[in-house]
């Protein structure tokens, strides 16, 4: 029908139910379910409450950053320094832990480092008007570089016992603290993006920054806040990861920025900005977690998994465009 005329106007709009069925989120959910079923056939160890609970650690920390990154990418910017912020925040916490400070202080230091790093990125991008890709490639080297200066080839250990709860604690049966935090953050970011003025401003900026500016949105301030939020979430992820590993090396969370960006893009967020949803990112987190966990159970080494992640990243963007080209 569509080849009759490009200006063909349908008699009536598609029903919401049909539109939902065609949406990226539903497609992704179908992928997640099929991976889940395939996994349970591929390995007898997959359908086990504790194993599945372990599997969530594959994505919870990355997903926390991905929520903030989704907002940032929707607004048309990107932050490639998130993994390095984790390294720096973890190093700061490790250095503090050597002076026998309390777990609460460590958490504040982790969050504070994240906020400072995010604000630094935000200042360079919105204050000086520099392109975020280059700025965050620069701060990516700088932040991790500082960790290397501090630590060299050493590692920090000796975190207080209470600190272990954030990465190793369980709230109820197999439900880990990280999983609860992940769910809470998903709800918070979902409301922030989809139900508040701030969220609408983020979409507006991503679609047309100049238009947004002329409609009274403080574009620079919103972008600055988004960078700070991304830094803060990297700090949260640093606390969880450091607590889970119990040690800090400067190479901690190496190349995570790639997986976080992949998660966001896989979740249906346009890399060019302007569109995407938090539920999409949540499902994408589960898809990536299930894929890595399933392949892990089949003894596939981590670096080979990264081939799948890389192919997934290109594939999910290429597929709709290939389908489009085939239709024409």
């Amino acid at each position: 029908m569509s080849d009759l005329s490009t200006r063909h106007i349908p008699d009536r709009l598609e029903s919401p139910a049909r539109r939902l069925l065609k949406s990226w989120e539903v497609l992704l959910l179908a992928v997640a379910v099929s991976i889940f079923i395939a996994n349970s056939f591929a390995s007898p160890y997959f359908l086990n409450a504790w194993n599945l609970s372990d599997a969530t650690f594959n994505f919870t920390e990355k997903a926390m950053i991905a929520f903030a990154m989704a907002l940032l990418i929707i607004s048309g910017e990107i932050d490639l320094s998130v993994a390095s912020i984790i390294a720096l925040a973890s190093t700061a916490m490790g250095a503090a832990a050597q002076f026998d400070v309390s777990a609460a202080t460590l958490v504040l230091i982790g969050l504070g480092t994240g906020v400072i790093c995010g604000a630094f990125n935000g200042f360079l991008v919105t204050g000086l008007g520099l392109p975020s890709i280059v700025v965050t490639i620069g701060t990516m080297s700088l932040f991790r570089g500082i960790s290397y200066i501090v630590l060299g080839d050493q590692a920090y250990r000796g975190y207080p016992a209470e600190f272990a709860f954030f990465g190793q604690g369980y709230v109820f049966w197999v439900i880990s603290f990280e999983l609860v935090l992940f769910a809470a953050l998903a709800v918070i970011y979902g409301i922030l993006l989809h139900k508040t003025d701030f969220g609408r401003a983020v979409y507006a900026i991503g679609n047309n920054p100049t238009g947004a500016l002329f409609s009274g949105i403080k574009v620079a301030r919103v972008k600055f806040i988004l960078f700070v939020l991304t830094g803060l979430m990297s700090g949260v992820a640093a606390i969880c990861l450091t607590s889970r590993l119990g040690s800090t090396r400067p190479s901690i969370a190496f190349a995570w920025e790639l997986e976080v960006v992949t998660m966001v893009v896989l979740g249906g967020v346009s890399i060019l900005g302007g569109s995407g949803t938090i539920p999409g990112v949540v499902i994408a987190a589960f898809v990536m977690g299930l894929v890595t966990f399933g392949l892990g159970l089949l003894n596939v080494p981590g670096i080979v998994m990264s081939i799948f992640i890389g192919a997934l990243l290109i594939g999910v963007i290429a597929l709709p465009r290939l389908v489009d080209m085939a239709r024409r």
Partner: protein
Amino acid sequence: MMHALKSREAILLGAILVLLAMIAWRFPSFVSPGNLSNVFNDTAPLIILALGQTLVILTRCIDLSVAANLALTGMVVAMLNTAMPGLPIAVILVISLALGAFMGAINGLLVWKLAIPPIVVTLGTMTIFRGLIFVISDGSWVNAHEMSDAFTGFPRLQFLGLPMLSWIAICCALLCLVMVSRTPLGRAFYAVGGNPNAAVYAGIDVGRTQFAAFVLSGTLAGLTGYLWVARYSVAYVDIAGGFELEVVAACVIGGISIAGGAGTIVGAILGALFLGIVKNALPVVNISPFWQLAISGSAIIIAVAFNAQTRRKPGRIILRRAEATS
């Protein structure tokens, strides 16, 4: 315009000379001709990659897969050499150029035909190429004793007082200089990056030009792959890990605008030399090599901030000229 660009390179050259003077003040042996040619030779891979990256960035793209391309090509030729020690170096060179070009073409096709943002494409292919090294090598190393003497000796061949590696970098630089300033393709890189819409009206295929830039960048990365593996006499999964950032840093420091269309080959070479001198000077002035990463990062940020400052000038100069003539 030309004037401002020229001064940009002059500033960088000045900075390099000041840097050298500061090092020479405490450690005179650092600036002896012998040591400087060593520094140049050590920086040669960075220069070659920065040349390719410059072409890509000129067309408003970015290629983050160069280091992974280098490592994969290096591993392939190292394994080929182990399996067939008799293979002439000329064949090895052709294979590394072709393989690099092929990987560059994959990037280019995805950017050209599917219009996927270059940063996403090359982030993806970067991990895929790295993963493939593990797949083909099974995670093991190819060590010096498994490589033939001709294979490892080629980059070290002395010619007119300089090793082959340095000469290849010089040749690549000269070729790029001529191409960028004297050929339609070279001018197209600037046109596409400067104003894609205007480029289309001038009869330039934007996607095809970007594709060409990626192929050239990949080709140079492939060539460097062989040279790198032969020079260090070892190939493993993680060689040149994170090197893509150093390459981008060299370009940004050299004044190549990440927004495309502005920057010169000479600038990129000077940017690479700046980083190379810093890297080689660190151990001499007794600073831990762990500082290298933070210094590169700071250099990128300072350079990009500096670029943004100078970018505002041309407009003002045009306005001033327009005002003066009216």
